C-alpha cells in the first residue's frame, strides 16, 4: 500500500523560524498556541481562588459562626477573628460563582482550548486575527484583575449573587456594597468585550481557514462545539453587556430601569440576565461535550457513534437555548402561562442532551477501550452529566420547581453540570498536554487524581440533592437558624469534609502538571495514535503549526478502519490506491 503522509514535523524544519524574544514569545504573543496557554494558566490560577472561596463557604455551612482555620488575618469587618459574618458569606458565594463561570471555565475551555485547538485541528497556521486574539487575552486579564480588585474596596466585593437580581443589586443601600458591585459590573462588561473579540475570531477562523478537504462535516466535534459556542457568545454577550450597563446606570446615574420606585421593573433584569444566562450555560457545557466526544472516540478506538446526530444535536441545543430562559423564573411572578410555555421548550431541549448521552454510550459499545487518564476523566464527565441532566428534569416540571426552586436541589443540579465540566477540563489537560507543552504527564498520578476527584466530587455534591428535597434553601448563611433544617446538619458536615478532601485530591494534579511541564517525558508527535490534525505536527507545534498545510481526506474518527492495518487512520493520510478514500462516509 503506497501512501504519503503529510505530517508536519518533517517539513516543520523548513518553515521560516523567527526569533521573537521573551516578551513577544511569552507575554505579548500573537501565536494562538501561546495565547491558549496564557488563558489556561489564568483559568487555573483563578480556580485556586474560586475553590478557596468554596471551602470557606463549606466551613461556614458545616460549623456555622465558628472561626475558619487559617483566616484570622482577614481584617474586620470582613471577618471577625476568622468568623465569617453574613455579609461576607454572601460575597463568598457571589464571587465563587462569578469566578468559576467567567474566570475559570470560560477562559480554560473557550479561551484556552478554543485558542489552542481551533487552528491546529482545522489545519490553519493561526487564528484569522492574531492581534485581536492577543488583545482578547489581555483585555480578559484586565477584567480578571478588576474583579479581584473588588475584594479590596471598602464594603467588600459584590454580595448580590452571581445573578445580581435587581433591585438588590441596583441600590447600594440594600446590600451595603458600593464599589464592589460597581467593579463586578465593570469587570463583566470588560470580559464581555474580551469574549466578543475571541468569538469573532473563532467564527471567522472556522469559516474561512479550514485546510483543503476539511469540510464542515469532517471537523472534529470539539471544533463544532467551540464554533457553536462562539456563535452563542457573539449573540448572548451583548444582551448581558446592555443589562449590566443599565444596572450600572441605575446604581450611579439615578436611572430606574430595574427600580420600581422610579417606574422600573425588577423582572426586566431577570429576563435580560437569563436571556444571556441560559445560552451561557451551553457556552460552558458545549466545549466539554466536544472534548468528551473526541476523547471517548480516541480511547474506544472507534468512530464516534452518530457523528451527524452529535453535530446536529449541538446545533439544536444552540437554537433552543434562546427559548428556555424563563425556566429560571417559574416562581418569579411571571405570568403562569409563560411558565407552561417555557416548561415545554425546556423539555424539548432535554432531547438533544439525551441523544448525546446515548451516542457516547454507543461509542463505547464494541470498542477497544483504553483507560488512560483523559479517558477516565471523559467518562467521569459523562457520568456526572447524566446525573445533572436527569436532575434537571425535576425542575423543568413547573409544579415540582415550586418546591425545589432556590433550594440545594438546584445547587446540586448545576454543580453536576457546570462543576462537572471540570472533568472534561482535566480530560482535555491530560489529553492535549503533550501537544501543548511537548512533554507527557504521568499516567499513574493521573489515574490516582481521577479516582480521588471522582469519589469526593460525588460525595460532596450528591447529598445536596437530599438537602434540597428536605427544603434546604440556597444562599443561607446558617442552616441551624431553621428548625426544619437542623436534622439535616450531619449531611452538611459530611459534604464539607468531602469538599475538603476534593480540594486535597487536586494536589496530585498540581504536582504532576508542574513536574511534567519541566521534567516530563518528551512527547512524540502523536502519542495517543489519534486522527485529528493537531497530531500531524510536532509536539509542541512550531510557529505556523504545520510545515505544509495538511490536506484532509476523511472524517476525524476513522479508528479501526478496515482500510488499514493499524487501528487509526489520520485525517490527512492519503491512501494512494484508494482514489475514493477522500470521500466522507
Amino acid at each position, binding site marked *: 500500500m503506497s501512501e504519503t503522509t503529510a505530517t508536519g514535523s518533517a517539513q516543520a524544519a523548513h518553515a521560516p523560524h523567527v526569533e521573537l524574544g521573551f516578551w513577544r514569545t511569552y507575554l505579548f504573543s500573537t501565536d494562538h498556541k501561546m495565547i491558549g496557554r496564557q488563558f489556561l494558566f489564568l483559568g487555573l490560577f483563578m480556580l485556586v481562588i474560586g475553590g478557596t472561596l468554596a471551602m470557606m463557604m463549606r466551613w461556614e455551612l458545616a460549623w456555622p459562626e465558628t472561626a475558619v482555620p487559617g483566616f484570622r488575618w482577614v481584617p474586620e469587618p470582613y471577618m471577625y477573628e476568622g468568623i465569617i*459574618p*453574613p455579609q461576607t*458569606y*454572601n460575597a463568598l458565594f457571589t464571587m465563587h460563582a462569578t469566578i468559576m463561570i467567567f474566570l475559570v471555565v470560560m477562559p480554560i475551555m473557550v479561551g484556552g482550548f478554543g485558542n489552542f485547538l481551533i487552528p491546529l485541528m482545522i489545519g490553519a497556521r493561526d487564528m484569522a486575527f492574531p492581534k485581536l486574539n492577543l488583545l482578547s487575552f489581555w483585555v480578559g486579564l484586565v477584567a480578571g484583575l478588576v474583579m479581584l480588585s473588588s475584594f479590596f474596596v471598602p464594603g467588600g466585593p459584590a454580595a*448580590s*449573587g452571581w445573578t445580581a*437580581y435587581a*433591585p438588590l443589586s441596583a441600590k447600594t443601600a*440594600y446590600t*451595603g456594597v458600593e464599589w464592589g458591585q460597581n467593579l463586578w459590573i465593570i469587570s463583566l462588561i470588560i470580559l464581555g468585550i474580551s469574549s466578543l473579540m475571541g468569538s469573532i475570531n473563532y467564527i471567522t477562523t472556522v469559516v474561512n481557514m479550514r485546510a483543503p478537504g476539511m469540510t464542515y462535516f469532517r471537523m472534529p466535534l470539539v471544533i463544532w462545539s467551540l464554533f457553536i459556542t462562539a456563535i452563542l457568545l457573539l449573540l448572548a454577550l451583548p444582551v448581558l453587556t446592555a443589562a449590566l450597563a443599565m444596572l450600572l446606570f441605575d446604581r450611579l446615574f439615578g436611572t430606574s430601569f430595574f427600580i*420600581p*420606585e422610579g417606574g422600573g421593573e*425588577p*423582572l426586566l433584569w431577570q429576563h435580560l440576565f437569563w436571556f444571556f444566562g441560559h445560552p451561557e450555560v451551553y457556552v460552558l457545557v458545549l466545549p466539554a461535550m466536544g472534548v468528551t466526544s473526541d476523547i471517548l472516540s480516541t480511547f474506544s*478506538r472507534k468512530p464516534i*457513534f*452518530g457523528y451527524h*446526530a452529535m453535530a446536529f444535536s449541538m446545533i439544536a441545543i444552540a437554537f433552543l437555548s434562546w427559548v428556555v430562559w424563563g425556566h429560571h423564573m417559574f416562581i418569579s*411572578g411571571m405570568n*403562569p402561562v409563560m411558565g*407552561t410555555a417555557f*416548561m*415545554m421548550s425546556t*423539555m424539548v431541549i*432535554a*432531547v438533544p442532551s*439525551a*441523544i448525546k448521552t*446515548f*451516542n457516547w*454510550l*454507543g461509542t463505547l459499545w*464494541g*470498542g*477497544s*477501550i*483504553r*483507560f488512560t487518564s483523559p479517558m477516565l476523566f471523559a467518562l467521569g464527565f459523562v*457520568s456526572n452529566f*447524566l446525573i445533572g441532566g*436527569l436532575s434537571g*428534569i425535576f425542575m423543568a*416540571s413547573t*409544579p*415540582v420547581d*415550586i*418546591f425545589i426552586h*432556590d433550594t440545594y436541589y438546584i445547587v446540586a443540579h448545576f454543580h453536576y453540570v457546570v462543576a462537572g465540566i471540570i472533568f472534561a477540563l482535566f480530560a482535555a489537560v491530560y489529553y492535549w498536554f503533550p501537544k501543548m507543552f511537548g512533554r507527557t504527564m504521568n499516567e499513574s498520578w493521573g489515574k490516582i487524581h481521577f479516582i480521588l476527584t471522582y469519589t469526593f466530587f460525588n460525595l460532596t455534591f450528591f447529598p445536596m440533592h*437530599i438537602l434540597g*428535597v*428536605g427544603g434546604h*434553601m440556597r*444562599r443561607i448563611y*446558617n442552616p441551624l*437558624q431553621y428548625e*426544619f433544617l437542623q436534622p439535616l446538619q450531619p449531611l452538611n458536615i459530611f459534604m464539607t469534609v468531602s469538599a475538603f478532601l476534593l480540594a486535597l485530591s487536586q494536589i496530585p494534579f498540581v504536582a504532576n502538571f508542574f513536574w511534567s511541564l519541566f521534567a516530563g517525558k518528551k512527547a512524540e508527535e502523536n502519542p495517543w495514535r489519534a486522527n485529528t490534525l493537531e497530531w500531524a505536527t510536532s509536539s509542541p507545534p512550531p510557529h505556523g503549526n504545520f510545515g505544509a498545510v495538511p490536506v484532509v481526506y476523511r472524517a476525524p474518527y476513522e*479508528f*479501526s478502519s478496515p482500510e488499514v492495518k493499524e*487501528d487509526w487512520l489520520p485525517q490527512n493520510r492519503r491512501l494512494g490506491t484508494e482514489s475514493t478514500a477522500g470521500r466522507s*462516509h
Partner: protein
Amino acid sequence: MLRWLPENVSTFGGEIDSLFYIIYYLTGAAFILVTVLMILFLVMYRHREGRKAVYSHGNTALELTWTIIPAVIFVALSFMSVTTWGRIKAHAPPADFQVQVTAKQFNWEIVYPGPDKKFGTEDDFQVDNDLHVPVHKVVHVILKSKDVIHSFFLPNLRLKQDAVPGRDILVWFEVTKPGKYELPCAELCGFGHSGMRGWLYADGPDDYQKWVQETWPGKSQARVTGGS
C-alpha cells in the same frame, strides 16, 4: 427520597409530590439503565490484545429510538405538569380568608383585614412574622415587597412565590393539618437573608379565635412585634 421530603400539609402538595415521584422513578430508571450499560461496556469492551474495535459509525434505527422515546416521555411529563400548575397558579378557588404579607429586609409584615374584611381600614391588625390562618380554609395571601425581591416559602405546603417590589401577587393555599410551620425567605435579600423567617400557624376555629382575642388589641392600627 420519600423520608427526606418534609411532611405535606397542603391540598395541592400531594399532587406536587406525586409528580416528583413520577419523575424520580423515571429518571432513576434512566440512570440505572445508562450506568449499567456503561459499566457493562467498559468491562466487556476493555482493550485486549488481538481484538480490534467494531468499525461502526452508528445505527439510524437505534438513534431514532433513543430520540423518540425520551421526546415522548418529556411531552407526557409536560402535559402532566400543566394541570397541577394551572390549579396552583392560575385558578385560585374563592377565598375564605384573606391576609396581606409584605416582605421587607428582613421580616414578613403581616396585615389582617380585621372584622370588616377590608385592607387599609381602621380595624386592620399588623404583626411581624406570625401568620395565623384557619385550617381547612382557602387562604388568599396578597404578597408584596417593600424593598428587594424576597421569596415566600412554606416547605410543608410545597409553596413558594417570589415577592416582587411594585407588584401585588396573589398566592393561595389550604392547610390540611393544624400546626406550626416554618416560613423562611428563599430568595437572597441582603445580609439578613439567612434567618429571615416567620411562622405559619394553621389553627382550628377555636384556636384562631383565641389567638385573636389574646393578641389583637382593642384599639385599631396597633403594632405588635410578633415572632418567637
